[in-house]
């Protein structure tokens, strides 16, 4: 069976692609900032690390686990009031970014924590012996030494965010997922479905290749 391409409207596809890229870019930026802070705090407060605050670690850990166990579609609906308070709307590109960040930041924080654990303890010990402050160790040692791991974590998070943006179409978010759902699923326009899926595949491929390149570029081992 030949696939008819009669339902494709290039302008709509282009707009949806742009929306997806904007949602991805903005939410990735906020996810990195928030997740990096949370991840560093998680790492520092964990046992036998620089701050070693088991209670803080435990409480943060629970919050992060809770956020991570809620499926994204449900989380989006649950936090609608918060989304509205932040952006003024729960729809479109703007209304999608807060749930994306709230879902992805805890995930990224865990990846950051894991990446920081890979840093050689001896190097931290050496920095302490040289009289570096805790903040100095975070900035000049941990974030530097974990750079390849952090870049790989950002790549994984970006790919996860792509699939989350697509899901957000369910509650009226924008982008390629929204297009696939409204045209491809609800109006049985298979051609639109195929095109959006192909675009998403290309996007994920490009992200992964860019991430892999950066990891290679910054590896020194």
């Amino acid at each position, binding site marked *: 069976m030949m696939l008819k391409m009669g339902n494709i409207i290039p302008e709509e596809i282009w707009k949806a692609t742009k929306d997806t890229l904007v949602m991805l870019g903005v939410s990735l930026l906020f996810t990195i900032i928030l997740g990096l802070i949370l991840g560093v705090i998680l790492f520092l407060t964990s046992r036998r690390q620089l701050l070693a605050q088991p209670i803080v670690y435990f409480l943060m850990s629970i919050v992060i686990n809770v956020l991570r166990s809620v499926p994204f579609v449900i989380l989006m609906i649950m936090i609608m009031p918060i989304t509205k308070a932040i952006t003024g709307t729960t729809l479109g590109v703007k209304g999608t970014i807060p749930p994306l960040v709230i879902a992805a930041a805890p995930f990224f924080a865990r990846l950051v924590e894991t990446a920081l654990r890979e840093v*050689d303890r*001896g*190097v931290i*010990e*050496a*920095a*302490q*012996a*040289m*009289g*570096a*402050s805790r903040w*100095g160790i975070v900035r*000049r*040692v941990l974030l*530097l*030494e974990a*750079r*390849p791991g952090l870049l790989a974590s950002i790549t994984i998070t970006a790919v996860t965010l792509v699939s989350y943006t697509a899901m957000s179409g369910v509650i009226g978010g924008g982008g390629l997922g929204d297009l696939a759902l409204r045209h491809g699923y609800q109006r049985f326009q298979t051609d639109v479905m195929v095109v959006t899926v192909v675009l998403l595949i290309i996007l994920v491929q490009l992200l992964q290749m860019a991430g892999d390149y950066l990891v290679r570029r*910054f590896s*020194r*081992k």
Partner: protein
Amino acid sequence: MELTRLSTSQLQQQRRRIGMIFQHFNLLSMATVRDNIAFPLKLAKLSKAETKKRVDELLQLVGLEQHGNKYPAQLSGGQKQRVGIARALANNPDVLLCDEATSALDPQTTNSILSLLVDINQKLGITMLLITHEMHVIRSICDRVAVIDGGEVVEMGDVVDVFLKPQHGVTRDFVSQVADSFDPRELIATRSGRLIKVNYIGDITYEPLLFNAVKSTTVQFTILQGTVSRMKNTPYGQLVIEFLGEHADIERVITDLRSKGLEVGDLK
């Protein structure tokens, strides 16, 4: 100063006065040799120009001028330890702590690192504290040694004294790893003459003391076992000697040797 009682920031200040090198080097793998050496300088908030100048000096001091822009993964173990030494010396510390600094290195590299340390010790006049289980490291570069057993200092003194006359059991165990420890019982059983053990340290090692002591007497001597060597720059000897001759003459010879500063002990 009691370092364990200082506050975090006071301790950070004091630690900048102490250089430290490690068994596994502990370099930043993501930073170049130059940036590794510059690390403590950045902590001390030196300007860019001063940092560059100081790093150049340090690279030259440890003989790594060619390798400034390499990453640690591109260096050999000995070169990595040289980076560690340069980094430790960056802020002109009062003391250099070497925590098993040569334990992960092969014997040749160990020697080159040790001679670098001696060189730096003489050039900069910096106090060095080595923590090691390698006896030859102590013998070749240390002046004084303390033996620690179960967290307590059990013996302390000049290297020559401690190695030649170990007092504590742990020290004897350590020293016997390097010294030709001998068991005199077999000699005692088989030889008929007067067996004595002679220890001497210093310049007298190279004087013909034994010959001078016996030449005007009837006494003859045979060296049965012994070591004549140097520890860092101090020559020393440990001999087991058999004297043959008249009893009174042998006593005179022994008295003579003692008066010259030799330590003489009877084995039989």
